[in-house]
């Protein structure tokens, strides 16, 4: 017998240990499409919510360069506000996403929130003589501070801001480096912090530290990739623009010479016009790829879009001399995509199929459900096919197997598919044609009464 369980949404019993619930919430949030800031908010929320450790307030410092900067402080400002907030958060059936939505407003720095009060609280991140709270991060130690006003190691400015006698400092560590610090207290309920609270908060600190570390690394990696792509783009644009410019300049130069025969004049002017059109095409495609902003995906019937592309004069003209056959299953489901981009994606794939296939070849378009939630639109050609290195680079901007291609079509398709939660797959062997599959999230069509 085999039993299957979901990795991302384990259903805990109501009386499951709170530690388990807390760790589950935090680890699940890392799989959500939240931003770094939202994920940090999830961690603070988990530390302060009733189902978590249940601290009243959580403050976050993040290390930026050699400084520890107060970033976020979550919790009620007063006992009255605490009552209101905790009532909302204990509404039966409220999900974690809703709680994060609700808490987002609480950490706004533009209003009179706790986070706004943190503004300007900055400490050196590596100071032998650091005062609390920076002391905990600098020494990489968890500190429980009680009777704070009598403790000379506590920074007075910080004490004025936090305004409580007992608080817990958890340094956020990753690979032996400090990435921040969380400070927790029970300012409203005045409940003493227990050893088990400290242990649990310490584990959350380790998870948070590693998350911040990997998220920051990921951001840096994206920046590096962006820079590399920009460099590649600059190189490519130079080449793409220079060749037509050289041709235009060279043939114009010839026209300026005396006694140019009429026939040559006409030929040169035709070349110049064609090269200018090519330049326009390059500029259009570049602008389209760089600036096109994708709209929010929605559910729609793909049938009319596919028909509009196939029946367009452009495709019909190209299809002469080819066997273009289209088979869509009856009663297509609704797919999730931006409808405008969908049309362009289909046209782009068809263009590629025509370009890769010699006249007389076959291009087959198929549309079918893979399963109740996935719809596949496939385009198969009998063209030259792709080598393995081609397949690896296919979705890289500016990579092209065409003589005059820009290499922006497939990266655009991938961007569209990524945005709508879909996928694009390629199957091909050199000399044996290619099969491109667009896999969309789908649902049954809503029946109109």
């Amino acid at each position, binding site marked *: 017998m085999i039993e299957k369980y979901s990795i991302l949404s384990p259903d805990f019993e109501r009386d499951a240990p709170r530690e388990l619930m807390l760790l589950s919430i935090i680890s699940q949030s890392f799989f959500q499409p939240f931003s770094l800031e939202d994920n940090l908010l999830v961690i603070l929320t988990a530390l302060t919510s009733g189902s978590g450790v249940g601290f009243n307030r959580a403050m976050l410092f993040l290390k930026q360069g050699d400084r520890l900067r107060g970033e976020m402080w979550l919790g009620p400002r007063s006992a009255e506000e605490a009552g209101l907030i905790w009532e909302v958060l204990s509404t039966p059936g409220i999900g974690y996403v809703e709680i994060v939505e609700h808490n987002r407003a609480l950490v706004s720095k533009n209003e009179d929130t706790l986070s706004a009060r943190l503004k300007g609280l900055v400490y050196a991140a590596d100071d032998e003589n650091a005062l609390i709270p920076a002391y905990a991060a600098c020494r990489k130690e968890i500190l429980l501070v009680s009777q704070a006003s009598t403790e000379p190691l506590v920074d007075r400015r910080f004490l004025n801001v936090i305004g409580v006698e007992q608080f817990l400092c958890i340094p956020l560590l990753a690979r032996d480096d400090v990435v921040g610090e969380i400070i927790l207290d029970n300012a409203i309920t005045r409940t003493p912090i227990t050893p088990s609270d400290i242990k649990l908060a310490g584990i959350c600190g380790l998870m948070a530290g590693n998350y911040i570390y990997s998220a920051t690394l990921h951001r840096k990696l994206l920046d590096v990739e962006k820079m590399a792509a920009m460099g590649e783009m600059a*190189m490519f644009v*130079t*080449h793409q623009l*220079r*060749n037509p*410019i*050289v*041709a*235009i*300049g*060279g*043939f*114009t*130069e*010839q026209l300026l010479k005396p006694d140019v025969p009429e026939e040559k004049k006409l030929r040169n002017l035709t*070349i110049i016009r*064609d*090269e200018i059109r090519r330049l326009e095409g390059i500029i259009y495609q570049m602008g389209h790829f760089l600036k096109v902003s994708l709209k929010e995906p929605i559910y729609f019937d793909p049938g009319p879009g596919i028909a509009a592309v196939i029946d367009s004069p452009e495709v019909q003209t190209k299809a002469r001399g080819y066997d273009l056959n289209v088979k869509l299953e009856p009663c297509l489901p609704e797919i999730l995509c931006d409808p405008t981009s969908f049309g362009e994606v289909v046209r782009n794939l068809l263009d590629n199929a025509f370009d890769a296939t010699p006249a007389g070849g076959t291009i087959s378009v198929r549309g079918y459900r893979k399963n109740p939630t996935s719809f596949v639109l496939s385009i198969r050609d009998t063209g030259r096919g792709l080598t393995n290195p081609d397949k690896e680079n296919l979705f890289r901007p500016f990579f092209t197997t065409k*003589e005059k291609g820009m290499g922006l079509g497939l990266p655009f398709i991938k961007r569209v598919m990524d945005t709508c939660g879909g996928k694009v797959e390629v199957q091909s062997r050199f000399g044996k044609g290619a099969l491109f599959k667009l896999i969309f999230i789908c649902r049954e069509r809503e029946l109109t009464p």
Partner: protein
Amino acid sequence: MKKKILIVEDEKTLCLLYEEELSNEGYDITAVMDAEAALAKLGEQSFDLIITDIRMPGKNGIELITQIMGLRKDIPIIINSAYQSYKEDFMTWAADAYVVKSSSLDDLKSKIKQLLGD
């Protein structure tokens, strides 16, 4: 006797331009559009000079130069590329001259004259 130049350039219009302009200068021009065709021509006849682009479909200009150097070290080679940055690639240093493509062919023509001793 006219000196023979082999041009390797994947852009049809540029092939035509170089062919006409350099023929007018009194050279015997053979233009091909990729490295394989260039190697085939080199196997068939001898040339006094080779002009090659770098970025081409299939084998690129740098690979072509490496192969030519293995076959015929005595033929001078000019790289004629849209990219300035390949100048920094030491693999291009094997060529006798590097000319960045321009709508004025003066630079290219003067490099040809210089290398052919005209």
